[in-house]
């Protein structure tokens, strides 16, 4: 233990605790900017500079370990002046037109300027306009707002292992961008959006598609329906009330109704459907000598990554569409038929925790009629939050409304899709019972839950014991993909999710996502599961009825047409598609 003083207050903290963490533990606030929990200490912005009595220079609290007997000041005139000067320097090279920025009132730089009470800048603006990269479907990179904190590089390089973003140039001309200033779409970008999620300012954002939705909602020709992903209900509350991990399903449905959606459906329904198709596919592969291990396909970031980096293992990936795309396909076939509307007049909006879903919806394979996308617009959790605010809805006062039929009755198995390990667990619940013809005693596969990078379980199906795994982040995906490629994978079935924590930690989720908030969202996810009446996908009565009345048998002709897809090797991510509307 180390005993030292901050602002004359004596603190005792464990060895190797940084000044910043020591201060946090003791409710002393030291302003930061490049610092982000769970990411590497960069110490680049120097905002957290503090004074150690007796030392000439200042030190950064994020990177300095105090020694016993030290006396540290976080607010001496020297520190305050340095901090203010540094912030003025940043602001002098920043497009500070705050009212014309999506991050207005939600910006860490703006907050800091407010906290440090910057009322004028002593330094001249040296900012020069630079071109904006909006050459793809999912993300917009605006270097004019970039403050070069390096968080995006860190998350792309070290969490995802992709290395799309790098420091280019040096000195004052230094920029953060893909190599040689190219577009994201020229690179191996998966559009996972983790960069956008950690950006303190508005330099990387999801492409704002809210206007398309407003337009459709007010188009009398259109039947506008919406689906909501499992992870959104445990996170949307954060955007509106700031409360982490709150389950807001009922209010969320009410809000969507108020926005004007004709019907509000649950992606959980097609998550159940995914489990049936994927479960049968796994059973088929095991029993008939198919390609194993089988890997999940619900995550578009992962699909994108596999297509670009591991073309050899594409046959290992389940041919099932993701729940989002299964929903889109059913909406423009089964639903349109049942409602007796031309599919062209069904407008499908998704609310997803994800930026890569925007890209997935625009894949050419995801158009039943070859012309119109099955899912017309994808909104992130944050974009929906924005629409709710635009509409002036008092979210807290909303009543709880259930999802609409027919895509409203769902199970606990579908609810846990949002957490890493959830798809695997849901699939095991179904596969076990279908193969072994007996009820599963313990529904909870606890060993595949939680934030550990690669989680394993063993399960007995049809007399054989198989090993399964759930991985999250692309850096971990790479490890298991290498094994699959080399034929050394010990697993029979692998769930892969691109974002840390799974979809609850997706790139479209509320800002400020850390491992702590991820864990709280995960806890809420399993709480939803535990309280569901039905917790296995194959027991969902609407799913059973859908097969009986419309789809026929799992893996049959109709499911093959509507619910399955294929993948193709490619060299880089996709440009903005020309038929975008």
């Amino acid at each position, binding site marked *: 233990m180390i005993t030292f003083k901050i602002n004359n207050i004596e603190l005792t903290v464990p060895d190797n605790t940084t000044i910043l963490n020591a201060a946090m533990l003791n409710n002393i606030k030291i302003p930061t900017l490049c610092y982000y929990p769970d990411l590497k*200490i*960069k*110490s*680049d*912005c*120097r*905002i957290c*500079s503090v004074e150690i009595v007796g030392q*000439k*220079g*200042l030190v*950064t609290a994020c*990177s300095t*370990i105090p020694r016993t007997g030290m006396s540290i000041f976080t607010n001496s005139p*020297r520190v305050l*002046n*340095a901090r203010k*000067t*540094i912030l003025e*320097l*940043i602001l*002098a*090279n920043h497009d500070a037109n705050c009212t014309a920025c999506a991050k207005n009132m939600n910006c860490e730089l703006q907050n800091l300027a407010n906290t440090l009470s910057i009322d004028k800048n*002593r*330094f*001249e603006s*040296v900012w020069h306009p630079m071109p904006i990269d909006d050459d793809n479907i999912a993300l917009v990179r605006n270097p004019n707002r970039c403050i*070069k904190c*390096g968080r995006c590089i860190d998350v792309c390089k070290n969490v995802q292992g992709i290395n799309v973003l790098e*420091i280019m*140039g*040096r*000195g*004052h*001309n*230094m920029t953060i961008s893909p190599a040689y200033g190219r577009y994201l779409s020229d690179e191996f970008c998966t559009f996972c959006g983790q960069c956008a999620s950690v950006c303190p300012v508005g330099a990387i954002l999801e492409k704002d598609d809210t206007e398309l939705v407003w337009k459709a909602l007010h188009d009398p020709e259109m039947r506008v329906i919406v689906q909501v992903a499992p992870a959104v209900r445990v996170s949307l509350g954060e955007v509106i009330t700031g409360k982490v991990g709150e389950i807001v399903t009922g209010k969320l449905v009410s809000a969507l109704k108020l926005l004007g959606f004709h019907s509000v459906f649950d992606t959980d329904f097609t998550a159940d459907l995914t489990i049936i198709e994927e479960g049968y596919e796994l059973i088929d592969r095991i029993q008939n000598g198919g390609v194993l291990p089988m890997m999940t396909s619900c995550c578009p970031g992962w699909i994108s990554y596999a297509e670009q980096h591991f073309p050899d293992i594409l046959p290992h990936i389940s041919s099932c569409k993701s729940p989002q795309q299964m929903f889109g396909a059913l909406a423009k076939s089964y639903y349109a038929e049942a409602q007796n509307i031309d599919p062209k007049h069904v407008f499908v909006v998704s609310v997803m925790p994800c930026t890569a879903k925007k890209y997935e919806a625009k894949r050419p394979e995801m158009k039943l009629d070859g012309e119109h996308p099955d899912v017309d617009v994808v909104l992130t959790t944050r974009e929906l939050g924005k629409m709710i605010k635009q509409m002036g809805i008092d979210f807290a006062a909303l009543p709880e409304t259930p999802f609409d039929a027919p895509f409203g009755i769902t199970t606990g198995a579908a609810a846990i899709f949002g957490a890493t390990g959830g798809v695997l667990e849901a699939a095991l619940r179904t596969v076990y019972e279908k193969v072994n013809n007996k009820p599963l005693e313990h529904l909870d596969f606890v060993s595949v839950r939680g934030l550990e990078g690669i989680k394993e379980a063993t399960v007995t199906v049809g007399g054989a014991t198989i090993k399964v795994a759930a991985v999250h982040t692309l850096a971990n995906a790479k490890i298991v993909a290498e094994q699959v490629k080399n034929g050394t994978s010990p697993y029979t079935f692998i769930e892969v999710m691109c974002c840390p924590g799974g979809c609850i930690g997706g790139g479209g989720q509320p800002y400020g996502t850390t491992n702590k908030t991820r864990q709280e969202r995960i806890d809420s996810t399993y709480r939803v599961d535990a309280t569901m009446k039905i917790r296995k996908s194959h027991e969902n009565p609407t799913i059973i009825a859908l097969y009986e009345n419309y789809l026929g048998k799992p893996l049959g002709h109709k499911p093959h047409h509507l619910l399955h897809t294929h993948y193709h090797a490619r060299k880089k991510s996709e440009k903005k598609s020309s038929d975008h509307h």
Partner: protein
Amino acid sequence: MIEQKVITKRIGHINPLSIEDFISLDGYAAFKKALSMNRMEVIEQVEKAYLRGRGGAGFPAAVKMIGLAKESGPVKYIIGNADEGEPGNFKDRYLMENDPHQIIEGMLIVAYATRATHGYIYIRGEYDLCISTMKWSIEQATKHGFLGKNIMGSDFSFTIEVRSGAGAYVCGEEFALIESIEGKPGRTRVKPPFPTSRGVFNKPTLINNVETFANIPVIISMGGAAYAKVGTATSTGTKLICLSGNVKNKGVFEIPFGVSIRSVINELGGGAAKGHKLKMVQLGGACGPIIPELMLDMAIDYERFEEFESKTGAGAIIVIDERFNIFEILMKVALFFSHESCGKCVPCREGHIQLIIIIQKFIDRKATSQDLISLESLARVMHQTSLCGLGQTSPTAIISALRYFRDDFIDCIEFHECEENGQL
């Protein structure tokens, strides 16, 4: 004469490309002596000599050696820093081109004492002759059995490789240099950990200026205590001085610590350029303080230099005469560092461009008293908060100019005020 040739004693008497010449003048004798000594004993001699780093920061060499010796693990590195990019410095080049083996011998002794396994000499990219000379000398030393496996029948093995960058000044900073050796862009790392625990390829690494290594064989030959008698009590040994600018005799001179700047300029440099009056001197290089003529009697030693809030031991003395004004000099310095900043941390990346804007106002005689305050405040913040030595030392010239040439700044402001008020 005030010169004292200790590490330059062979220069001019040997063919630098001939290892035989070097050996004939006691070359590698100190290394052989060290091999017969206990490893701790070697470090003790360096400790007794009180040798301090010659690259600029003046860190005690023995402390680094003890640090590296303490590290366990099968791979440990030693780096000779010859990325001599500081304007006004050319002494590493002088050593490498004229007595390359002395550096290799110094590295060998340190490697032996600390159980290092592999060495790099990182040479500034533009120094073509140094690169080829050092490579040739390493080859010769290997052929003669001074480098390689089980050197001279001992259990000590050591190899050296030459590396160089693409010319970035910041690669002289220890962690930027280490990143560069690893094949990455030259940008510093967050400290701690320090190189002695995690340096090249995350292995324990000792990094010294090549002049520091050149002193090691001398210390082993004459003994630490005898070495400590050269120079002053706290700044022992000799220093290579690079004399340049508006002075008659430019070049590298070896002097014992404690000699005054004035005597170096007058006795070795022959005084200011013909017909001109000396106005100021910049010490150490672009990152050093600018002092007026009346301060030239100060002695060259570490303690005196540290009074300028700057560690300035690299050894440059740049003489500037009355033909130049202080703002032109400060602008050159600011432009240089603006170009060489790696861009990683805010004060250095965004600070230099603002320094340039303010200095330009003084050059244009448009500066106000507010500009003076901003300049002073910005320079101090950059000095106190930058991540690495580049940003911490680059404002030294400005900070010292504001102290010793404040009248020049005030004149400028008053001129502008008078102009504004229509008094001119």
